[in-house]
């Protein structure tokens, strides 16, 4: 009986080594294929239940928020008009200078299915079969950056969230009320795990305040320019450190719905 158990353990170990060595991706892909309807169903009901719960919990502050949003909306209307004028002016200038117009992103629609318990990774439908490659950025429909493709299976992909400890990329900080001309402020967004991101390498003399918006930049070629990352929060100024201690509240956290997009015509420079 004891010998049987030992033989069984040895067989299991050998089988695991064999699968890990030769069939790991295809094995996982098969399991994901079988359970993807259940996972999508759980993801959908989880999303709608959490939305319901959140609106129920936040009912008290809803009126106050609504008034604030109305006020902001009026400001935005003025801004939009200004932006329209600038856009028109910009287009005319581009035509004059014969610039090639910026190509829009080529997008692949994917559906998020699950998030790993340990480590900031999510699993999305769509893999090598539809042309997804490692290093491609993943965004929401509001152009909020979610992460980049970390592992590609045949029909599924694993996405490394921007809050993962392995993730770091350069960002630009823009003032929320950008009325006057201000210096360009750049920094490094460093994932801290558990959906947290720190903003690093921002010199003490740079004027940033809570609520300032953080965008991606093209400097290191990790992500395309102009994608929304989040907003500045928990600003701590220390006399000892050369740089400011800042946290970023990532927007994707409240935006991780079912539908996401993979940018097909951009691959991180690290992967090229």
């Amino acid at each position, binding site marked *: 009986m004891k010998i049987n158990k030992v033989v069984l353990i040895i067989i299991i170990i050998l089988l*695991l080594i064999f*699968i*890990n060595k030769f069939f*790991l991706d295809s*094995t*996982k892909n098969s*399991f994901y294929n079988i*359970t993807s309807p*259940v*996972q*999508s169903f*759980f*993801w959908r*009901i*989880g*999303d709608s*239940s*959490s939305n319901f*719960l959140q609106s129920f919990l936040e009912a008290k502050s809803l009126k106050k928020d609504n008034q604030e949003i109305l006020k902001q909306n009026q400001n935005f209307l003025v801004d939009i008009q200004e932006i329209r004028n600038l856009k028109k002016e910009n287009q005319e200038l581009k035509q004059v200078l014969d610039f090639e117009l910026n190509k829009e992103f080529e997008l692949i629609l994917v559906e998020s*299915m*699950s*998030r*790993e*318990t*340990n*480590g*900031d*990774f*999510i*699993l999305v439908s769509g893999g090598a079969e539809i042309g997804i490659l490692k290093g491609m950025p993943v965004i929401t429909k509001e152009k909020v950056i979610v992460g980049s493709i*970390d*592992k590609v299976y045949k029909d599924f992909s*694993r996405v490394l969230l921007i*809050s993962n*400890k392995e993730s770091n990329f350069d960002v630009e900080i823009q003032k929320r009320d950008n009325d006057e001309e201000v210096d360009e402020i750049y920094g490094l967004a460093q994932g801290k*795990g*558990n*959906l*947290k991101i720190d903003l690093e390498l921002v010199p003490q003399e740079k004027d940033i305040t809570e609520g300032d918006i953080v965008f991606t930049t093209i400097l290191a070629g990790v992500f395309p320019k102009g994608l929304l990352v989040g907003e500045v929060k928990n600003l701590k100024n220390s006399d000892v450190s050369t740089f400011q201690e800042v946290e970023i509240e990532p927007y994707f*956290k409240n935006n*991780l719905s079912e539908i996401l997009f993979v940018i097909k015509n951009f691959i991180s420079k690290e992967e090229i």
Partner: protein
Amino acid sequence: MKRDLILILLIYFLVLFQQSFLPHFEVYGMIPNLVLVLVFIFNISDHKSGLALSFFAGLILDIYSGMPLGVSGLLFLIMAILIKKSLKFFQKLNIFYLIAMFSFCLIFYNILLNLIQTKL
């Protein structure tokens, strides 16, 4: 045997629930690890197939993570052995023992898994 198969199916269901439903209810970015809780309950109640079930639970969790197959399985197996060994020293199950043992398991699993993740 039949009971164990039902338990494995339950674990499988729990893994899917944990990874697809619970992320929407994260607290400070963290998702509760129900599979670890279940493994703890199996072994603290001295379940006959506790060791094998713990290993399979880890194996299923590995499928739905980026880990090679067997990493969580092995960690859960070590955890199960430690729980079973500790039961010999602490005959009476009291609340302090349960809290201490569960905290130990949680820390043990997370630290080792993070270490392995950074090495891979």
